[in-house]
């Protein structure tokens, strides 16, 4: 059953060293507050999964929490590189970073298959791409009806799924609205799940087919107002595109990153 918790307690309870974790949110609803709490609690040797690593994973990697990264597009959208991720890949700073690289279609299908309880995802993918040469996870299966060769990859079933959402009601049901990405899939496929929300409300007040996660699918709900900043929460606040641009300078240099980490993460109390 769902427990309402502080974010500090939720991370302490459900995130362990060595876990495989998906913090998802396709540009929208990225769980920055939860990521920062993981950094503050100094989790180590995490295997992180995320379609679009983005700043949140740059920060986790730069803070030394991560040993492995599975991704399909790793960059600062519209700005450039993730300098902390590149520093880890290219110079093993602050530690060695193993990578597993997919396409978006592959990861979207693997999340879908994970939510669907299947061991594999089957899709028309990687045709002519050289990614299968460098990613041993990518196999092919032959359709018994058409003879077509299709791509197959293992489904994603993280130990912990972490997302941010607009709101929960008092029973712990969660509404996700707007660009919903793979948010539902992450929670449904993960062994344990944490959802941060902008607020708790009496009534979600939704239309019949809204994207709602029932309370019993979520392990911990933590209220984290502005918990997605500098990403955004539709209906609450906009994406801080300027922050993304300025991140390029902060993250380019190890010292300025470490300064930022001290003042903006370790210097902040728990939410």
């Amino acid at each position, binding site marked *: 059953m769902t427990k309402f918790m502080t974010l500090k307690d939720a991370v302490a309870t459900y995130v362990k060293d060595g876990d495989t974790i998906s913090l998802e949110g*396709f*540009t929208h609803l990225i769980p920055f507050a939860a990521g920062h709490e993981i950094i503050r609690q100094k989790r180590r040797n995490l295997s992180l999964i995320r379609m679009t690593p983005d700043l949140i994973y740059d920060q986790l990697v730069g803070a030394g929490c991560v040993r492995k990264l599975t991704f399909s597009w790793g960059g600062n959208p*519209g700005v450039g590189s993730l300098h902390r991720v590149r520093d880890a890949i290219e110079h093993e700073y602050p530690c060695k970073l193993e990578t597993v690289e997919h*396409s978006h279609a592959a990861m979207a299908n693997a999340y879908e298959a994970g939510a669907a309880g299947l061991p594999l995802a089957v899709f028309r993918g990687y045709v002519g791409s*050289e990614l299968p040469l460098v990613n041993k996870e990518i196999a092919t299966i032959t359709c018994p009806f058409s003879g*077509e060769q299709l791509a197959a990859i293992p489904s994603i079933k993280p130990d912990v799924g972490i997302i941010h959402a607009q709101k929960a009601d008092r029973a712990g049901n969660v509404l996700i609205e707007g*660009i*919903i990405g*793979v948010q539902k899939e992450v929670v449904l496929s993960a062994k344990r799940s944490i959802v941060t929300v902008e607020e708790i409300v009496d009534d979600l007040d939704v239309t019949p087919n809204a994207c709602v996660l029932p309370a019993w699918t979520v392990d911990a709900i933590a209220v984290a107002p502005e918990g997605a900043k500098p990403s955004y929460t539709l209906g609450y606040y906009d994406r801080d595109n300027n922050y993304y641009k300025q991140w390029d300078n902060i993250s380019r240099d190890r010292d300025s990153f470490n300064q930022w980490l001290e003042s903006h993460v370790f210097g902040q109390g728990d939410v």
Partner: protein
Amino acid sequence: MTTHNDTAQYTSSEMMTITAARALSNDMTCFVGIGLPSEAANVARLTHAPDVTLIYESGTLQTKPDVLPLSIGDGELCESALTTVSVPEMFRYWLQGGHIDVGFLGTAQIDRFANLNTTVIAANHPESGKNGAHSYANPKVRLPGGGGAPEISTNAKEVFITVKHSKRTFVKDVDFITTIGFGRDGKGRDNLPTIGRGPSVVITDLCILKPDPATKELIVTSLHPGTTKQDVIDATGWEIKFADSLETTPTPNEKELQVLRELKARTEKAHSAQEIK
């Protein structure tokens, strides 16, 4: 900034964007890559193709952003969309399901068979050959990766590419095929009836290139006004060929330039509104 005196003053970047925009027609559904393709697609929508259907991989269907998104999932895209679906649904039902006429892509590297590399730059690395499998582990430059492109290129009915022309970008063989054009030998799509027909046009700031119908090698079919053959030869990493009936690309008109400039100004203003805390 290069400018040309014709009916209007414009830069080579503007020439590229507007030429790319013109490739889209009103009845197309276009899966839009971020950056140059997004700019071109929205100029098309705001000029000659008001009903062009723009789809972004973030799940936003039939979106009409007033400012260009910085990311593929800016709120603007969702708020102006007909509806927004999940990312698995976007890739399964809408892209793989065969509902996309045009995939509009940018790239970091492109080769003579229109293969795209957005994975690693490794050509100058001591361990590397020209085979991505050998240079991948220890790249010279780690690029962002494939994102949606590998399957956009195979599941859309055709592919448009727009990218700035330079010898660094236009290479004989890409260091790594992230996304297939026509494969290492130009025959990579042969006998694959379930995939799309691949790149049909590449629009740069110098010219328009199209695959030769027989060999699939990219050849220049149209030079932008003020560009010479030598300019293109100098900016291309292989012995580039020119079509027999080489055309001159029509110049941007006043309305297109105005729309593009206003769009970029609105975008600049929107993205600079907040200061980092």
